[in-house]
């Protein structure tokens, strides 16, 4: 079990009821199926991992008259962890991530990135992370390479590391020759790739992604997932939001569930899978957390 004290609080972490396996009717013709890889996190938790993200009682609304977009959200992310934020459309996932990235101000609560307060020590906190927004906004009037150079300058990446990192990232994302083209000529998927490359050029301690897998081709998606595992194995942390339940189940150590701006549950996926290797996360989410109030 993790050492996080909040895990003992029943108000935050609900007792997970594992669905019992149902007897399946026998099909008349049985197809020969290849062995399925287990849909569970494939990396191990680092011992003595430090806290990289600490969110306490986050509350955010877009105007004084508007309802709260996020209410009392609290969670932590440690070194070597992949944490997913899951919820319906408009649940408050992107808002939470944007507050974390320092894009949006928030009314109440505290956010710390690698020990730095996002409001009081904004620049230091921001230099610890790389982020990819849900709309993959980039400077479309730059070429891919100019954009990467820009990001490298902003995050103060030394010259001798730039080419090395570029080669490493290109091996993962395989943008290839179009890196020299204007970003305005890129397809949706290519823009996503260049955004991810830009966010990783400084090898951040924390990588935040909003809907990272949308629009990626299957090959790149697999490469990104493998990269995520390798990245956290180095002691880095990844926090991402997604609708793709299988991806979340496969990648995340922990999942924060948000519904209508409120944190409703936090699941320790490693422990859950350790107890029940056949745990069907999709089924669980749709039955328990996926229901609207």
């Amino acid at each position, binding site marked *: 079990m993790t050492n996080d004290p909040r895990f003992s609080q029943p108000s935050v972490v609900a007792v997970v009821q594992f669905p019992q396996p149902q007897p399946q009717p026998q099909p008349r013709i049985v197809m020969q199926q290849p062995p399925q890889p287990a849909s569970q996190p494939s990396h191990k938790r680092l011992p003595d991992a430090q806290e990289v993200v600490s969110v306490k009682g986050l509350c955010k609304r877009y105007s004084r008259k508007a309802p709260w977009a996020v209410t009392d959200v609290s969670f932590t992310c440690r070194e070597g962890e992949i944490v997913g934020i899951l919820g319906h459309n408009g649940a408050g996932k992107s808002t939470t991530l944007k507050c974390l990235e320092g894009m949006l*101000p928030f009314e109440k609560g505290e956010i710390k990135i690698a020990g730095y307060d996002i409001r009081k020590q904004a620049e230091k906190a921001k230099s610890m992370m790389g982020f990819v927004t849900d709309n993959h906004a980039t400077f479309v009037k730059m070429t891919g390479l100019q954009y990467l150079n820009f990001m490298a300058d902003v995050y103060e990446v030394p010259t001798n590391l730039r080419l090395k990192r570029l080669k490493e990232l290109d091996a993962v994302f395989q943008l290839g020759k179009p890196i020299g083209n204007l970003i305005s000529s890129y397809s949706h998927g290519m823009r996503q790739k260049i955004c991810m490359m830009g966010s990783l050029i400084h090898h951040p301690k924390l990588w935040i992604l909003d809907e990272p897998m949308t629009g990626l081709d299957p090959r790149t998606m697999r490469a990104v997932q493998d990269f995520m595992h390798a990245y956290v194995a180095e002691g880095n942390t990844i926090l991402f939001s997604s609708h793709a339940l299988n991806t979340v189940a496969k990648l995340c150590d922990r999942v924060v569930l948000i519904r209508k701006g409120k944190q409703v549950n936090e699941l320790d996926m490693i422990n859950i899978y350790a107890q029940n290797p056949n745990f069907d996360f999709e089924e669980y989410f749709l039955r328990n957390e996926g229901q609207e109030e």
Partner: protein
Amino acid sequence: MKDRKNKAAVGRKRTARKTGGVNFRMVGALLRKGREERRSMFKAGQFDLLGFLLRVLLAGAIVALFVVFFGRFVGVYAAIKTAGKPDLVSRSNELLTILYSAIFLGMVVGGVGQLGRELFTADDMKLYSAMPINARTLFVARLLSIYRGQLVIALVAFTTVNATFAWRVNVTATFWLLSFGSCFLIPLITIGIAAVIVPLFQVVKRFLKERYILMFIVLTALLGVAIWLYSIILSGVKQLLLGDSLKYFFNEKIMRGIGKACSFLYPARFLADIMTGVRPLQSWLGLIGVAVAGIALSMIIIRSILTRSLQARNQGSSAAAFRNSVIKGKGSKFAALLKKEFLHIFRTPSYMFSYFSVALIMPLMVYFCMDVGASLVVNLVGLDCELELAIFLTILFGALTNVFCATNISRDGEMFYAVKAMPIGYKTVFLSKIVLCLIVTAISQVASAVTLCAAGMVGIADAAFIGLVGLLFSFANIAVATRYDFNHAKFSTEDDGEIKESSGTVSIVIVVGLLFSFLVGGLVFVLKILGQLRSFEIGYLTYVLAGGIALLAVALANFYLFFRLRKKYYEFSGGGI
């Protein structure tokens, strides 16, 4: 009940077949969609009342200026004698032909832009191509939308010209009737001409796309030519204001030339003939013939390019290969932001034109206006006020050039948030924008001062002072425009993030810039005149006043720019997205 529904459906299909497959209900729906979009701009929370009022005020000021000058010019021109006799009908005919030609030209230019937007760049084209809307229906809806836009321009422009003309020359009720009626016919002609030009324009546009340096040269050269033509008009205005010399300008030879040129200016000539009652039957036939040809041309050309443009939009554009494929050495955050800002402006043609080209051409504008203004002041007031005039013009054109800075924040769109999430201080973000504008404005101001000095209009010391004062006022202008835009940021919702419509912020910055230049320019001017009239030496008062106000403006603008900026920056969640 079911039978009735089926019959109605069959009836609709038959009607659609009869009308060549045009579904007029769909046309209505498409036009309604456009109307709703326009209406939504006036909804509470979206509508910028101050900006709207200022825009109306600016438009009103331009119309009023035209009415005053043109009204006066009509009187002078109508009295010009040829072969020793005044000829009101011929003069009216010439004057209206020239003005109608100018309106036709403006409408054709506007039509080319409108057609290009509606057919090639409108966001909804991609969606429509995937919807069950046939090409003919879409074509009719687009054509009607373009026609409506042109009709509004025609009604405003022709009514203004004809009303001003009628103010100085007696006209009958038929003139007013014809003036109103012709507005409905004219858009058909201008759309037809625009439809012929638009494919060629698109070819040129595609050729220049991503050839940014060439585009910059072409746009700047075109602007230079436009300014040169404007200077000719200015010298005409000067002649007009100087009174008698205009009569010498419009001598027999010039009048013969004007008459001959007007005889070729079709189709405006047809309209002028109709309005002045010259060969009405032939002119009507001619005008209707041109309108029919215009409809036919627009039908053929727009339909042929509509399908192709739909397919081209869905294919996307081809990428240009860049030779730059080396990773750069480490640079500062400030330099990175400065480069980003430059590339953003330089690689967006409309931004490049409205800032870089205008800034580069500004010295020419100052020179031409100084040339006209200096001789006017000497002739009208009998005083030498070249330094004061130069200060006024430098501040005025500097303010107009820096209007572009009113989009310094809005231009970034959602990327403003992305930059906010980067480890960059708020001062670096703002200063990178302001410093780029200052570099551009400094080039422009120094070039203006050097031009005035080289032309012998001011001395070296005065030129240096003018350059310095211009730069100081420009800083104040840029700082205020940037902060005001930050406080009222409105990000573009276009696909490419480009701002295509001017906001209320732009109008406010224009009005403030104009007021300030008139106040400062007027103050030093009036003091100089008063000093010379009352025979007291004002000495260095112009320098002290202009320099002092410039320094004060810098201090105030600097205070306004940075007032609670840190807090506002980190709390920023505007932009309207």
